[in-house]
C-alpha cells in the first residue's frame, strides 16, 4: 500500500493522548532554579534609579540581574541575518524602557513563586518620555528617534515596480484610492514561551531545552550573543505546544536565562505566564497600505500604486525582523492578475510597542489588500466581484508572469474560484440574499483568491532558493529500521508522520520501520528557519526522499552483487529485497543492513557499507507550478441588533499539489482559517493612547472557541498529482486568505448601507457602525 496520500494515523499521537508528551515545562532537572522578569509598566521612560536590595535579600533568591549587570556580561544583540538598521540593545534594558513589558530586571530563585515575589521588591524610578505609538508620529521627522544610535524612527525603506505604471494609469477610465489597515494581533500558541538552560562548568557545554521552531537558529544566535563557542551550545527540543511563527524567534529572555545558568552554575528554567505572553512575546500584522488602482469601466485592472507602512514595535525580531517582510508583501501584492504597471514603496517604523514577529503568512497584508481592492473596484463599477477576478486572472500559461516578474506557469487561480463558487452555489446564494434582504435580514457572500510561493517557481529555487535548499540525513540501522534526521522542528504539523510516509514509500518498508528524529542540534542539520515558511512539504520531504533513495541504491547494489542480479531488477517490498517477479528469492532488508554493520569487509567489492546519505536537497525533481494557492468563499449573516457575524458556510478550494496526508493537510487549512476568523472578528492586541497594553488576559484578548468557528468544507485540487516531489506548502494559506474572504462577505452583507470595509478588525461595534446603526 502506498502511504503517501493516505490518512495515516499520526506517530505523535499516543504519547500526547496518554499525557506523556515532553513539553518544555515538563522538564525538571536536579537543583533547577526558576527565573522571573520585572517588566516595564511604561511605554517609554528613562530609568533614573533602580534598587534591588530588597529582592536580593528575599527568601530563596539566588541572583538578581539588572541592565547594568547585563551590559558587562552580555554582548550587544546583533541579528545573525542582515536586516534594515537595528539599535544597540542588550538582553535587559540599560537606561530606557521602550514598551510596556520591556525587560528591566531578572530574578533567579529556588522557586518560580519566590522569583516572582522578589521582582515586586525591586524599586525602579522612571522618568516618563513621550511614547511613539502611531505611524504618523513615527514618520514625523520632528519627533526624536527612539533609539539614540539611530537616525530616525524609519528602519528601512524599499521600492518595487513592474511594467509601466504611469502608462497604465494614463490609460485608465478612473483611479480608485483607498487606505487599508490591518490591526495588531498575536500568534498566541496554547503553550507560552519557555526554556531550561543548563550549563556544565566541567565541559563548558550549555544545554538549552527550548520550545522553538528552529533549534539551530537558536543555537547560532545564542552562541553569537553570549560569545559562547558554537560547538558547546546544544539545543534540544521535544514537543512544542504550537508556535505559528512566534517561536521561530530568539528572545531576550532566552539570552538572560542562559547567562544566568552560566553565572550560577545551576540549571535555570523560565516559563512565561499568559499575561507576559500577551504583553511581551511578540505581536504581528500591524500594517497599512495606501493604494491607487487604475481601472477601466469594464473592470480591467490596469495599474496599482501602493505605499506600505509596517510597525515593528520597539525591537527587531530575531532572526527575522519586520524589515525582512516588505520584500514578500511588495512582491506578491499584485497577485495572479494581469496588471500592466505597478509600483510600491515600503517603510518599516519603530514604535513603543511589543516587537513585531512573523505570524503564519507574515506577508498576508498583500492578499487582504488586493482581494479587498478588487471588491471595492467591483462595487464602484457596479460589477460582480467574481467577474472582475475572472476578467483579470492570469491563466497559468507557460509565459504568464506576475507583474513583479515571477513565473506563474501552472497556477490554478481561475479554477479554484470557479469551483469554490460552484460549491457554495453562488447563483443560488445571490437569489437567497435578495430574499433575505427583502425580509430585512442582512446576508452576504464573499470570496478571495491567493497564491503562495511554497516553494515558489523555478527561478526562486535556483541553488535551493534563499535558504540554500534543505538537508536531511537518512540511515539504515543494523536491524533494518530507517532513521530520518530532519532539519524541521515540528510543533503540531505531524512531520514524524508525514516524513515517515514519504520515506517508507521510497524505501519499500512499513510505516513503523521508519523513525523521524528532530530537535537535537548534535544530530539535526542546520536550518535557520527550522519549521516555518510552509517549507516542510516540499523541502523537507524532498530532502528525505532523495536521501532515502541514495540509501536504497546502496542496499540494492549490495543485494544485487550477492544475488548476481542487476539492481534495476530488484525492488524492496515490505522490507524484503525482492527480485522482480520472484518473491521466493527475497532477502530481508535487515539482513543486508546487519551484514553491512557487522561485517563491512565481507560485502561485495565496489559496494558501500556506509548505509546512510545526507545530500543537500536543492530542489531537483520538484514538479508543478511551485505555487500553492486557492480560493475561499463564505456566506455570512449579520445580526443588526447585536452586530454579531454568523458564518453560515465556509468553503475552501485549495491547491497544494500532491497531498501527503489529507487529514493533516485539512487540519492545517482549518486551523489557519480559524485564526483568520479570529483575526477579523475577535482578536486585537490593543494599546491605549499612552501605550498601555489593554489585552493582557484571555478575557481581553479573545480567541475563537468551538462555538464561533464553523464547519469548514475543503476540496483539494491536486494539480500535478503524479509529480514525484509535487507536494507544496499548506501551513500558511488558510490564514493568509481567510480575512479577505470574510471581510468581503461582511462588506457584501452591509452594502445596502453603503458600507466600505477599510479596517480589518470588525468586532460587533464596528459592524454596527458600518451599518450606520451606531
Amino acid at each position, binding site marked *: 500500500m502506498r502511504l503517501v496520500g493516505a*490518512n495515516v*494515523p*499520526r506517530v*505523535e*499521537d*499516543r504519547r*500526547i*493522548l*496518554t*499525557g*506523556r*508528551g515532553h*513539553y518544555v*515545562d*515538563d522538564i*525538571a532537572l536536579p537543583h533547577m532554579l526558576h527565573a522571573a522578569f520585572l517588566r516595564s509598566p511604561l511605554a517609554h521612560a528613562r530609568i533614573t534609579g533602580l534598587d534591588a536590595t530588597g529582592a536580593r535579600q528575599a527568601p530563596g533568591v539566588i541572583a538578581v540581574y539588572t541592565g547594568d549587570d547585563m551590559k558587562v556580561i552580555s554582548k550587544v544583540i546583533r541579528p545573525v541575518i542582515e536586516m534594515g538598521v537595528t539599535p544597540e540593545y542588550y538582553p535587559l534594558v540599560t537606561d530606557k524602557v521602550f514598551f510596556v513589558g520591556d525587560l528591566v530586571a531578572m530574578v533567579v530563585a529556588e522557586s518560580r*513563586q519566590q522569583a516572582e515575589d522578589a521582582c515586586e521588591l525591586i524599586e525602579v524610578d522612571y522618568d516618563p518620555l513621550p511614547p511613539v505609538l502611531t505611524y504618523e508620529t513615527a514618520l514625523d521627522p520632528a519627533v526624536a528617534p527612539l533609539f539614540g544610535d539611530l537616525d530616525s524612527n524609519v528602519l528601512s525603506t524599499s521600492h518595487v515596480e513592474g511594467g509601466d505604471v504611469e502608462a497604465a494609469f494614463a490609460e485608465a477610465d478612473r483611479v480608485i484610492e483607498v487606505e487599508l489597515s490591518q490591526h495588531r494581533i498575536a500568534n*498566541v*500558541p*496554547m*503553550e*507560552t514561551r519557555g526554556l531550561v538552560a543548563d550549563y556544565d562548568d566541567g565541559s563548558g557545554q550549555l544545554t538549552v531545552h527550548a520550545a522553538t521552531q528552529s533549534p539551530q537558529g537558536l543555537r547560532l544566535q545564542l552562541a553569537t550573543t553570549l560569545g559562547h563557542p558554537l560547538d558547546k551550545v546544544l539545543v534540544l527540543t521535544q*514537543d*512544542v*505546544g*504550537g*508556535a*505559528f511563527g512566534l517561536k521561530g524567534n530568539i528572545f531576550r529572555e532566552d539570552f538572560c536565562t542562559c547567562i544566568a545558568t552560566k553565572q550560577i552554575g545551576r540549571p535555570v528554567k523560565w516559563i512565561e*505566564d*499568559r499575561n507576559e505572553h500577551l504583553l511581551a512575546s511578540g505581536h504581528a500584522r500591524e500594517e497599512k497600505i495606501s493604494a491607487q488602482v487604475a481601472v477601466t469601466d469594464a473592470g480591467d485592472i490596469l495599474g496599482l500604486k501602493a505605499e506600505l507602512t509596517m510597525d515593528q514595535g520597539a525591537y527587531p525580531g530575531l532572526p527575522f525582523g519586520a524589515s525582512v517582510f516588505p520584500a514578500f508583501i511588495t512582491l506578491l501584492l499584485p497577485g495572479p492578475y494581469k496588471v500592466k504597471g505597478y509600483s510600491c514603496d515600503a517603510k518599516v517604523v519603530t514604535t513603543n510597542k511589543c516587537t513585531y514577529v512573523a505570524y503564519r503568512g507574515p506577508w498576508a497584508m498583500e492578499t487582504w489588500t488586493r482581494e479587498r481592492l478588487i471588491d471595492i473596484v467591483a462595487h464602484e463599477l457596479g460589477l460582480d466581484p467574481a467577474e472582475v477576478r475572472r476578467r483579470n486572472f492570469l491563466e497559468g500559461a507557460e509565459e504568464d508572469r506576475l507583474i513583479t516578474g515571477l513565473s506563474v506557469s501552472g497556477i490554478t487561480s481561475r479554477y479554484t474560484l470557479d469551483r469554490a463558487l460552484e460549491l457554495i452555489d453562488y447563483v443560488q446564494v445571490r437569489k437567497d440574499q435578495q430574499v433575505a434582504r427583502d425580509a430585512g435580514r442582512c446576508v452576504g457572500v464573499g470570496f478571495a483568491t491567493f497564491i503562495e510561493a511554497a516553494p515558489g517557481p523555478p527561478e526562486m529555487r535556483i541553488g535551493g532558493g534563499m535558504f540554500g535548499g534543505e538537508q536531511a540525513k537518512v540511515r539504515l540501522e543494523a536491524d533494518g529500521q530507517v532513521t530520518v534526521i530532519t532539519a524541521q522542528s515540528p*510543533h*503540531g*504539523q*505531524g512531520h514524524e508522520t508525514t516524513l515517515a510516509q514519504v520515506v517508507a514509500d521510497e524505501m519499500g518498508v512499513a510505516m513503523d520501520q521508519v523513525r523521524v528524529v528532530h530537535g537535537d542540534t548534535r544530530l539535526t542539520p542546520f536550518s535557520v528557519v527550522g519549521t516555518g515558511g510552509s517549507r516542510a512539504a516540499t523541502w523537507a520531504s524532498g530532502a528525505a526522499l532523495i536521501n532515502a533513495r541514495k540509501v536504497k541504491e546502496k542496499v540494492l547494489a549490495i543485494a544485487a552483487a550477492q544475488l548476481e542480479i542487476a539492481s534495476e531488477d530488484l525492488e524492496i517490498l515490505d522490507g524484503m529485497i525482492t527480485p522482480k517477479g520472484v518473491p521466493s528469492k527475497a532477502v530481508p532488508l535487515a539482513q543486508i543492513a546487519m551484514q553491512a554493520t557487522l561485517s563491512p569487509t565481507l560485502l561485495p567489492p565496489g559496494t558501500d557499507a556506509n548505509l546512510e546519505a545526507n545530500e543537500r536537497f536543492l530542489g531537483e525533481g520538484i514538479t508543478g507550478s511551485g505555487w500553492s494557492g486557492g480560493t475561499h468563499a463564505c456566506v455570512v449573516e449579520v445580526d443588526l441588533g447585536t452586530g454579531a457575524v454568523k458564518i453560515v458556510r465556509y468553503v475552501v478550494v485549495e491547491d497544494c499539489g500532491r497531498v501527503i496526508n489529507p*487529514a*493533516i493537510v*485539512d*487540519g492545517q487549512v*482549518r*486551523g*489557519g*482559517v*480559524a*485564526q483568520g476568523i479570529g483575526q477579523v472578528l475577535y482578536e486585537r492586541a490593543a494599546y491605549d493612547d499612552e501605550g498601555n497594553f489593554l489585552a493582557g*488576559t*484571555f*478575557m481581553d484578548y479573545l*480567541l475563537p*472557541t*468551538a*462555538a*464561533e*468557528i464553523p*464547519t*469548514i468544507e475543503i476540496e483539494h485540487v491536486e494539480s500535478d498529482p503524479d509529480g514525484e516531489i509535487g507536494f507544496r506548502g499548506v501551513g500558511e494559506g488558510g490564514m493568509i486568505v481567510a480575512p479577505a474572504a470574510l471581510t468581503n462577505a461582511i462588506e457584501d452583507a452591509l452594502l445596502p448601507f453603503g458600507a466600505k470595509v477599510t479596517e480589518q478588525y470588525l468586532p460587533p461595534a464596528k459592524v454596527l457602525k458600518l451599518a450606520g446603526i451606531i
Partner: protein
Amino acid sequence: MQVELIVNGSSYKAPVEPQRTLADFLRDDLRLTGTHLGCEHGVCGACTVIVDGQAVRSCLMLAVQADGSEVMTIEGLEKDGKLHPLQEAFRDCHSFQCGFCTPGFVMTALALLQEGTVPASEEELREELSGNLCRCTGYQSIVEGVTEAIRRTTGTASISAIDGGAA
C-alpha cells in the same frame, strides 16, 4: 498542610503549601505532567481534570481543596496498554496537532461522556466544548473526535444531528 487524595486510582498523602494549586501539585509534586497550564486564569481549559466526577480547572483549584477527593488526569485513561475509546477516537479523527490543549479537551469530553447526557446537536456539543481553547485545529476535528467517541461508547442511536460531522 497535609492532603490525602486518590489520583488515577493511587492514594497519595503529601504535605502541601496552602497556596499551591492542584495543577502545580499534580505536575510538580506527583510529576503527572500531562495536565498542561495554558493561561493560569481559568479561561483556556488546558488544565482540566476530573475531581469527584466533575470537570474542573486545576489552575483555579487549590490542592488543599482536593483533600479527600478522587482525581483523574489524562494519565489515568489508558488501561492495561489499551487506549480509552475517547483517546482512540481523538487519534482516528486527527483531533489535535500540537497536543498542548488535548488533555484538557479529553478530560472535558470524558466528563461529558460520564454524565451520560449526550448533546442533542453539533451546536450543543460545540457549546459544551467552548470552555476549552485550541489554537491549531479550528475545532472541527475535535468535534468529530468527541462525536465519534460518543457514537462508539453509546451506540449509533445518539446525536443523530451530528452524524454528518464525523464523516
